[in-house]
């Protein structure tokens, strides 16, 4: 790892001051992605600003039809939260599939969403549930947030404060884990929301996206068989040693069917 200076911030204002005054800083949440990347010397920030002391970024609450999860809330906390289990059980379930217990004890929802790893689990739920990403500057709609591989709508100096998930009528997540890493080879999150059926896909493309094809089919007929005749184009999907684009397109349908099955 290259050398850097370490700062522990105790408020969002302090983080903002540090970001604007330092040379090439990076904020650190759970470090479960950032530290391995720095160990491999793929990232070399001049300064690390640790968010772990900022209490306003932690915790889960319910407010007028929304579940609000602070950016620094760990995967373990989401997985075991009674509130999340009651209001959006699929989200608690998803959090329990991330990595392993030790990773879940440190990794955070804000870090995962900000990172936009193509095979991360949370982005599918953010898209499917139509969550809002609340930052220190604005509220970003989920449809506008994930842009590309490891690229989001966040400015370089923008900080995610929380995620605001509308409580759906019902929702389900199914993941086909990559056999070695257990990241999602393909993950499909289906929600029946106030705005209709929304389907978020992760693992298949450069970043999480909505499957309008499946949404259309399910809006007419919310059954497994409705998915059978949907055509998932494979042109823009990922292809690597683990799975071809065509196989990923196929898995999207299989996981979507399993998610529907879970809901009925």
């Amino acid at each position, binding site marked *: 790892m*290259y050398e850097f200076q*370490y700062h*522990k911030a105790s408020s969002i204002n302090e983080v903002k001051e540090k970001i604007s005054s330092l040379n090439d800083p990076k904020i650190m949440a759970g470090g*479960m992605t950032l530290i391995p990347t720095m160990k491999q010397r793929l990232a070399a920030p001049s300064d690390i600003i*640790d968010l772990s002391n900022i209490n306003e970024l932690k915790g889960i609450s319910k407010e007028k039809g929304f579940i609000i999860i602070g950016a620094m809330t760990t995967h373990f906390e989401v997985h075991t939260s009674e509130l999340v289990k009651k209001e959006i059980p699929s989200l608690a379930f998803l959090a329990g599939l991330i*990595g392993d217990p*030790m990773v879940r*004890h440190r990794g955070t929802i804000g870090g995962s969403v900000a990172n936009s790893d193509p095979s991360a689990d949370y982005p599918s739920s953010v898209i499917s549930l139509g969550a809002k990403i609340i930052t220190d500057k604005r509220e970003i709609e989920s449809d506008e947030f994930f842009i590309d591989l490891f690229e989001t709508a966040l400015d370089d100096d923008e900080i995610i404060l929380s995620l605001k998930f509308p409580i759906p009528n019902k929702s389900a997540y199914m993941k086909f884990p990559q056999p070695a890493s*257990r990241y999602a080879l393909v993950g499909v999150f289906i929600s029946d929301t106030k705005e209709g059926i929304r389907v978020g896909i992760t693992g298949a493309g450069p970043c999480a996206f909505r499957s309008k094809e499946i949404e259309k089919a399910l809006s007419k007929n919310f059954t497994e068989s409705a998915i059978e005749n949907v055509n998932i184009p494979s042109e823009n999907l990922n292809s690597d040693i683990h799975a071809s684009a065509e196989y990923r397109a196929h898995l999207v349908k299989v996981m979507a069917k399993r998610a529907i099955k879970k809901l009925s």
Partner: protein
Amino acid sequence: MKINVNVNVNGQDVSEEVEPRTLLVDFIREKMKLTGTHVGCDTTQCGACTIHLDGVAIKSCTILAVQAHNRSITTIEGISKNDELHPMQISFKENHGLQCGFCTPGMVMAGIDIRRRKPTIEEDELRLELEGNICRCTGYHNIVKSILNAKM
């Protein structure tokens, strides 16, 4: 620039100067000379470095030593009391839960954490809980048996 860390290691308060880039596992092994905590990978996957931070299992290769400031850590050396093995260690011994032993400190620390969270866990779920601990020798059967049968 070095930073001062105050950390309680296995019940003892320690104060040391470290570089910010020092990983907690390197602090444990090289500064504290507690070499029971192992390093088996570069990618946060193997779990050989598992310790407890304020009683919760974490991978000490993926946290900076400075992040443990004002907190308590427990390593494999800190779980036995008065020269008596911890019940999890006894169970690994009785169930032949190790061969070369490289993964064992991490397995024992993860096992204690799993049984703390899920005292009555059953085999299927336990195997999922061991996702982050890799063993190259045993084939896991006896590790699973050891954790299930530990009298804690």
